[in-house]
């Protein structure tokens, strides 16, 4: 009988112990591969969300956005506005490739949810905004026709949820203002999906905000120096500059901090699993003290015993690693949902991306751990002296 067959049969003799050990390793592998998949997926999703905004720098009115958000959610009147004439000043900077003015407005809708809610409209410049959003494709219709200001373009989800099609109307809550839907976007996987776009003049005229805007989106030239450009923008009165590259870095830094903590936990879990494997195999070696002695007395060499015990360890880790990978792949959607509930902000799209390379790397890591964990028990078993083990029976 081959030494590997003996090792395999040894594992089957104590099925519960073997299963529990494999389960421990599987869970460690699952955590590890999911975490590495999250690392990859989150950055990709965040980059895509920011890239799809169509601009790298956003200029907003000076003030506290948190306060503005709170006020807006309470009644839609707390947004900070800036003068539209700033657009002409920004246009003169040499680093600017394209720019567009926007005005956001929230209206309280008493029919939304249990206690009412805010319906937000993004007022855009029909001439400049589409140039910055060239990736956008329409499911129906197109951008504003210009025939009237009372037109709306709806994101995919916004239209689906309200069952709107091109030619349908929407009512601005709390007013008698009607908008005709002229375009519905295809799904973008970004925040555009839930947005209702209207001409900015519609908001300015109907909500007494003539000459006011809430933001300017700026697309910079390819070789522009973003830092010096931002410094130039800060010289403008009463504005604040939000660089989306920095937004991304800031979020990634925060996520990295959380990731270090979780990674530490994952490493501890892997170490515990590793100690569990050592413990299981050592117990197995001590239980089979006499058997190993008999094997040796029948001619088995120390290297055969070493290989047998080592194989058991590597086999447990290999199977555990494969199951862990399968768990991570199969439950990646569940992991995605759980992570979204924990994180304060999650970009759209998949947060956990597990590909073949990642799965293989994790599997090799787990098997590598098995190789190391198995050394001591295998050495211990290989060192058993036949006569001592046989005598121990009488003792």
């Amino acid at each position, binding site marked *: 009988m081959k030494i590997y067959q003996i090792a395999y049969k040894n594992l089957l003799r104590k099925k519960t112990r073997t299963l529990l050990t494999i389960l421990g390793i599987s869970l460690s592998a699952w955590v590890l591969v999911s975490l590495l998949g999250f690392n990859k997926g989150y950055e990709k999703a965040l980059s895509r*969300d920011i890239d799809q*905004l169509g601009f790298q720098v*956003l200029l*907003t009115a000076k003030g*506290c*956005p*948190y306060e*503005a*958000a709170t006020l*807006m*959610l309470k009644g839609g009147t707390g947004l900070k506005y800036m003068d539209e004439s700033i657009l002409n000043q920004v246009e003169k900077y040499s680093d600017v490739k394209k720019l567009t003015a926007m005005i*956001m407005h*929230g209206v309280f*809708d008493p*029919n*939304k*949810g*249990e206690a009412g*809610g*805010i*319906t*937000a409209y993004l007022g855009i410049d029909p001439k400049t905004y589409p140039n910055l959003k060239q990736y956008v494709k329409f499911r129906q219709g197109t951008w504003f026709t210009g025939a009237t200001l009372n037109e709306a373009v709806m994101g995919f*989800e*916004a239209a*689906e*949820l*309200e*069952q*709107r099609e091109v030619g349908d*109307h*929407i*009512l601005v*809550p709390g007013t*008698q203002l*009607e908008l005709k839907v002229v375009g519905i976007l295809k799904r973008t996987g970004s*925040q555009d999906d*839930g*947005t209702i776009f209207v001409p900015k003049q519609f908001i300015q005229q109907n909500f007494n905000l003539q000459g006011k805007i809430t933001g300017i989106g700026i697309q910079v030239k390819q070789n522009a120096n973003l830092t010096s450009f931002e410094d130039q923008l800060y010289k403008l009165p009463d504005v*604040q500059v*939000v660089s989306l590259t*920095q*937004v991304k870095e*800031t*979020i990634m830094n*925060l996520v990295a901090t959380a990731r270090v903590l979780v990674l530490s936990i994952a490493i501890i879990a892997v170490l515990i699993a590793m100690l569990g494997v050592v413990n299981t195999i050592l117990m197995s070696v001590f239980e089979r003290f006499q058997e190993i002695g008999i094997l040796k007395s029948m001619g088995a060499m120390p290297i055969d015993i070493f290989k047998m015990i080592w194989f058991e360890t590597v086999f447990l880790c290999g199977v555990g690693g494969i199951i862990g990978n399968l768990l991570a792949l199969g439950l990646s959607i569940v992991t995605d949902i759980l992570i979204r509930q924990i994180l304060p*902000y999650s*970009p759209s799209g998949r947060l956990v991306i597990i590909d073949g390379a990642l799965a293989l790397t994790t599997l090799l890591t787990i098997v590598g751990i098995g190789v190391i964990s198995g050394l001591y028990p295998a050495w211990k078993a290989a060192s058993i002296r036949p006569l001592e083990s046989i005598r121990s029976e009488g003792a």
Partner: protein
Amino acid sequence: MHGFCRNGLIMKKYLSFILIVFWIVSFSFSAVGCDLNDPDRDVKRLFPVSTGYKTLYLSLNKDNLSKIEQRLGDRFTGLYETVDVPYTLYEIYQNKSLIGYIHGVNQKGHYGGLQVFLALNKEGVIEGFYYQKLTSKEASIFRSQAFAAQFTGLSLNEFYDFDIKTLRGNAAVLAIKNLATTAEDDFRSTLRAVKKNLILVDEFALSNKHLPYYK
């Protein structure tokens, strides 16, 4: 120290921006299903004598979808009228006895989606009617007790004999007055939603007992 504070402010600013741009939009369009917003409260309001309820999640298949379209007299269209849409039926109990049902449907309205809920006794007769979601210039009229009361006592017996396209047929249904005369579309949509709702409850819970009334 100054640098730390500045970094903290910048971080706060960026996060605030992200929250505004992404969060408000997502807040505005959270998922809409046709479940009761607050089942415990709503069940007690619609059936004051109830002591409990059971929630059932049901769906149609391709075969009964086409049959229901025939009975309704109109095709199912749009997001909320596909074969994949799950329906939530609430069975209402008084102690251990079934006393009725609550069921809601989504319906396209003039300015947006409507959610029309019916409270039915165990024979499928309407005991309560209300809009959980409605966007209309005349929302207050549609939501009034006077409008809702017109549906009480009706069932599929009457609605099977009513054409939702021509608005002709059963006298009892024709007696339902559009109290918001400037919102004819939403009135028609409401009648369609009620008929669809009754047909679905008949299919899901009443073993199509009203089918003999279908002509």
